[in-house]
């Protein structure tokens, strides 16, 4: 262990800075890796190639561009609400990241019911989006905001229900305990790879991924920002740094949800206990493991995003209410029965 004794406030600041750096670094990496490059390859083109080697500094150029833009308010906008909304959305993202464990004690804040907290704060972004839609004084923004609210509320439910299967299996609402349960678990008596819940909770995993895609308003579910009918939905009036904050929030939330999904279903920072890696080593290995799993899952999000066309509004709601929620409820029942039986 590090022989370092920090005061509580020093430790808190250190955790916040490292957490923020990890979040923004991962977001940048994912945007370059998937949004710029992987998608370009899917479309048989190269993507950015000029800024830096293989276009790796493109993101910096884009951020620099957005920072220089004029900060425009519409004439009849509710200025305070309009200005605050992107920060409410990104706040929800940052709060989500607070509880993602990256090692035995490596999380920004210790909480006993951290999963409950994560699901709760992820819903705050709805308020920010509604604020943006209403305060813009623009019919497209309002429609986009309402669609987003309807969609996020509809898909919050299957997401929470899908998670309950994991909670029943692990017997805890604490993400650290869930990671430990997967690390020390066994599948039919075999503990070679522990028991990542993607194996026993595969239905839950699929429901979570679909709901996550919808929560992120990524493409098959991007009705709120459907550019062909709503221009850019609730973001239509935003420019400059406020748009940049929305942009960062969109992809940082993708990271946040992927990290939660990786923790719940892929074993989080933990490696199978039977591999015998020491507790101290996991402080170093853990963050790498969780980052790799998170980036991998984010890749799935972008892969799906750039493969499928957009759902219609009614199809989108039907998928949530008539298919995903009953399926998630069934999953809970089956999981509970099996939990009691074994």
């Amino acid at each position, binding site marked *: 262990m590090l022989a370092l004794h920090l005061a509580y406030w020093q430790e808190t600041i250190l955790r916040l800075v490292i957490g923020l750096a990890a979040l923004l670094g991962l977001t940048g990496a994912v945007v370059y890796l998937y949004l710029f490059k992987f998608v370009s*390859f899917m479309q*048989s*083109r*190269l993507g950015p190639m000029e800024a830096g080697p293989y276009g790796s500094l493109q993101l910096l150029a884009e951020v620099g561009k957005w920072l220089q833009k004029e900060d425009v308010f519409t004439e009849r906008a509710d200025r305070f609400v309009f200005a605050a909304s992107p920060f409410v959305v990104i706040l929800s993202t940052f709060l989500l990241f607070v509880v993602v464990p990256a090692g035995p004690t490596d999380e920004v804040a210790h909480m006993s019911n951290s999963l409950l907290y994560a699901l709760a704060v992820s819903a705050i972004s709805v308020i920010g989006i509604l604020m943006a839609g209403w305060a813009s004084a623009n019919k497209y923004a309002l429609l986009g905001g309402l669609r987003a609210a309807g969609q996020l509320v509809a898909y919050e439910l299957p997401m929470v229900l899908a998670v309950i299967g994991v909670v029943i299996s692990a017997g805890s609402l604490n993400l650290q305990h869930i990671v430990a349960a997967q690390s020390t678990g066994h599948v039919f008596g075999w503990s070679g790879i522990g028991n990542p819940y993607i194996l026993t909770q595969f239905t839950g995993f699929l429901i979570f991924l679909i709901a996550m895609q919808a929560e992120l308003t990524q493409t098959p579910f991007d009705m709120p920002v459907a550019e062909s009918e709503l221009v850019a939905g609730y973001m239509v009036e935003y420019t400059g740094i406020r748009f940049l904050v929305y942009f960062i929030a969109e992809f940082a939330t993708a990271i946040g949800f992927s990290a939660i999904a990786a923790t719940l279903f892929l074993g989080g920072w933990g490696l199978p206990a039977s591999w015998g890696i020491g507790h101290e080593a996991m402080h170093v290995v853990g963050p790498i493991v969780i980052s790799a799993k998170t980036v991998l899952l984010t890749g799935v999000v972008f892969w799906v995003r750039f493969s499928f066309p957009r759902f219609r509004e009614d199809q989108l709601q039907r*998928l949530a209410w008539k298919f995903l929620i009953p399926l998630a409820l069934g999953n809970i029942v089956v999981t509970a029965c099996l939990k009691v039986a074994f």
Partner: protein
Amino acid sequence: MAPSKPQLPGVFKGLGVTLKEAFKTMFPDGLAKPPSPSRGAQTVQYPREKETPANRSRGVISLHEDNCTSCMLCVRECPDWCIYIEAHKTLAPPRRAGGKPRAVNTLDRFDIDYSLCMYCGICVEVCPFEALFWTPEYEYSEFKIADLIHDKDRLEQWFDTVPEFEAYESGSEAKVKKVPPKGAS
């Protein structure tokens, strides 16, 4: 309308298509060889490498001044009025010995404003004297919009890049365009 059921195999087929395309772009020589997306991609990095446009592509319109009779047909047919012609009459020597000197039009000005031109090609079609030709050259952007007005000397320079006429497919009723020999003027 009956609600359509999600077609599961189709969903995965779609994911497979995009993934396969991504790998085809990344590894044009197969997965065992090192990745080389710049060869796998269908696009070219434009200012560094250039594609040769097709022979008959509509890049810029060139003028062969010797063939122009200032008949103004192109000016009047141009949908957005981007051709400007001014001419005066001069006397040319008679065609046969002992004949009268002929009155011919000499161009003072023949401008095409490429900031207005929409590349419809009607002027080229309508010219009865084979004075206007398409050329595939496309790099003539300017910093000032006024510089997009090409005068008759500039248009004459483009004439050197006019490709030889390529015969149309059989069955085409389009007229054959005769390209005069280069450097005649």
